[in-house]
C-alpha cells in the first residue's frame, strides 16, 4: 500500500482527487439544486472543441479548453434564455457543435492523436504538476466566487423570478454560475474525461443532499464524499488495472445507490 504513494504520479493523482472533489462539491451543489444538469453536460461536451484546438495549435489542450468551455457556457446561458427554441434543443445543438469542432481540429492536426482517449475518458495518472497548479487556481476562483456571491447563486437557484423582484442581477449571476461550471469541467477533464465529467458534478452533491438541507453543509459534505470515493476509486483502478475515471464513477454511483436504498428502508 505504501509503495503505491512513492510514485510521483500517484501522489499527483491523490492531490488531483482532492482538488477536483472541492470543485465538484461546491459547483455540483448548485447544479443539482438549480437543475442545470443537462446544461452542464452540454458545456462539458462542447469543451471538447477546446481540447481539439489545443492539439491543432500544439498547446496544452486543458489550457485551450478554458476559454472554449467558458464561451460554450455563455452561449448555453444566452441560448437557453433568449432564443426562441426550447432549452433542451439549444443544449443538444451546442453540445454536438462543440464536439464536431474538436473532431475537425484534430483531423486537421498532422500525426496521430495518441492520448486523445485520455481527454475523453480521463486518466488521473497523467496529471502533471502543472495540471495540479491549474486545478488549484481554478478551485480558488470557484470557492472565492461562491463565498462572495452565495446569496445570489442561492436566490437564483431557488426562484429566478422572485430574485429579479429582490433586485438580484439574475442574468449576470446565471452566466457567472455557468462559468463556474465551465471551470469545473476544465478541472475534471484530465481526471475523468469529458464524457464522465457530469457524473462527478452530480453524484457527490446528490448523495450529500440526502443527509443535509443546508447549502454550505451540503457543499462540504459533497466535497468530502468526493475526496473519499475518488481516492478509493483511484486505488481500486490501480489494483485492478482498469480506467481510473470509469472506476471512480462506478464507486460513486454504487455509494449513492446504497445510501439511497438505505435511507428508503430506514424511513
Amino acid at each position, binding site marked *: 500500500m505504501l509503495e503505491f504513494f512513492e510514485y510521483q504520479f500517484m501522489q499527483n493523482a491523490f492531490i488531483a482527487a482532492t482538488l477536483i472533489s472541492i470543485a465538484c462539491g461546491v459547483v455540483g*451543489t448548485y447544479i443539482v*439544486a438549480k*437543475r442545470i444538469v443537462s446544461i452542464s453536460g452540454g458545456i462539458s461536451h462542447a469543451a471538447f472543441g477546446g481540447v481539439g484546438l489545443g492539439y491543432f495549435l500544439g498547446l496544452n489542450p486543458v489550457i485551450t479548453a478554458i476559454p472554449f468551455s467558458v464561451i460554450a457556457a455563455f452561449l448555453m446561458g444566452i441560448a437557453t434564455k433568449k432564443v426562441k427554441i426550447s432549452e433542451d434543443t439549444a443544449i443538444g445543438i451546442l453540445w454536438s457543435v462543440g464536439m464536431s469542432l474538436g473532431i475537425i481540429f484534430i483531423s486537421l492536426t498532422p500525426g496521430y492523436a495518441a492520448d486523445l482517449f485520455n481527454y475523453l475518458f480521463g486518466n488521473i495518472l497523467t496529471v502533471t504538476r502543472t495540471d495540479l497548479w491549474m486545478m488549484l487556481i481554478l478551485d480558488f476562483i470557484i470557492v472565492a466566487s461562491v463565498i*462572495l*456571491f452565495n*446569496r*445570489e447563486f*442561492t*436566490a437564483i*437557484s*431557488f426562484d429566478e*423570478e*422572485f*430574485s*429579479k*423582484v*429582490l*433586485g*438580484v*442581477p439574475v442574468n449576470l449571476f446565471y452566466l457567472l454560475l455557468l462559468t463556474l461550471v465551465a471551470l469545473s469541467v476544465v478541472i475534471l477533464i484530465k481526471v475523468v474525461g469529458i464524457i464522465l465529467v457530469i457524473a462527478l458534478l452530480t453524484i457527490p452533491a446528490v448523495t450529500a*443532499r440526502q443527509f*443535509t*438541507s*443546508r*447549502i454550505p453543509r*451540503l457543499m462540504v459534505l459533497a466535497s468530502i464524499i468526493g475526496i473519499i470515493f475518488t481516492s478509493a476509486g483511484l486505488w481500486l483502478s490501480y489494483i485492478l488495472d482498469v480506467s481510473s475515471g470509469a472506476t471512480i464513477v462506478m464507486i460513486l454511483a454504487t455509494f449513492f445507490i446504497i445510501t439511497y436504498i438505505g435511507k428508503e428502508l430506514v424511513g
Partner: protein
Amino acid sequence: MEKAVEIKKLHYKINNKTILEDISLEIYKREFLAIIGPNGGGKTTLLKMIIGLLKPTKGNIKVFGLKPETARKKIGYLPQRRHFDTDFPINVFETVLMGCYHGPLKGYSREDKEKVDKWLERLEIDHLKEERLDNLSGGQLQRVFLARALVREGELLLLDEPTSSVDPLFQEKFYELLDELKHEMAIVMVSHDIGMVAAHVDRIACLNQKLFSHGTPEEALECIEDVYKCPVELIAHGIPHRVLRKH
C-alpha cells in the same frame, strides 16, 4: 391623498393577443385594493407590471413616482403559487431571509435576522424556523412566502391569490392581519374570494382585459356579472362572515 401606484392608459399584448386594454388606475397610500375577475382576465399580469416583471406595450406605470424597477425596494410581493420545487436545500428561516436581499457583496445584518424572527412569529410559523420546505403543508408554505414578502417592510404589498391553499382557520387570521397592515402600507390583492374580500377592502377593481369598475365593494358587486359574463353567487366559505359592511 398621496398615490402609491399610478397606471395610465396601459395596454399589454403578447403575440398579438390583447391581455390588458386601456387600464387607468390609481392606488393610494394605505389603501387596500382587491383585483377580482375571471381566470385569464389579466390580474396576475397587471400585478407583474406594477413590480416591473413585465413591461407595458403601451401606456405608463409609476410606483411612488418612480419606474417600477426602481421602486422595488418599497414593494413586498407574494407571487401566485405555481408548481414549485420544494426539494430545494433550504429551510424556512433562510427562505424568508432572502427577502431582505440588499445587493451583491452586502450580507444580511442582525436587524434583518430579527425582522425575519418577528414576521415568522406574527404569521405563527416561528416553530417551523428550522424546518425544510418539503416538510411543510401547502398552507404553511404560503405563510413562509407571505413572510418573505412582508419582511421587506415596504410601503406597498402585492398579493397574488394569497388565500389559495391556506387553511380556513388561518384565512380568518390572515384578513385580520391585513386589516392591521393596511394602516402601514398600501395593499393590492388579487383574489377569487369575492365574498371574503368585499368585507375587508376599501375598493375592488373588476378586471377582465378592461377595467370594469374600481369603486367601493358595493359598486363592484353591481358590475360583477358583467365582468364574469355569468351570474355570480356570493358564497361564504366555511366561516360565517358578513359580505358587506354596514351602511
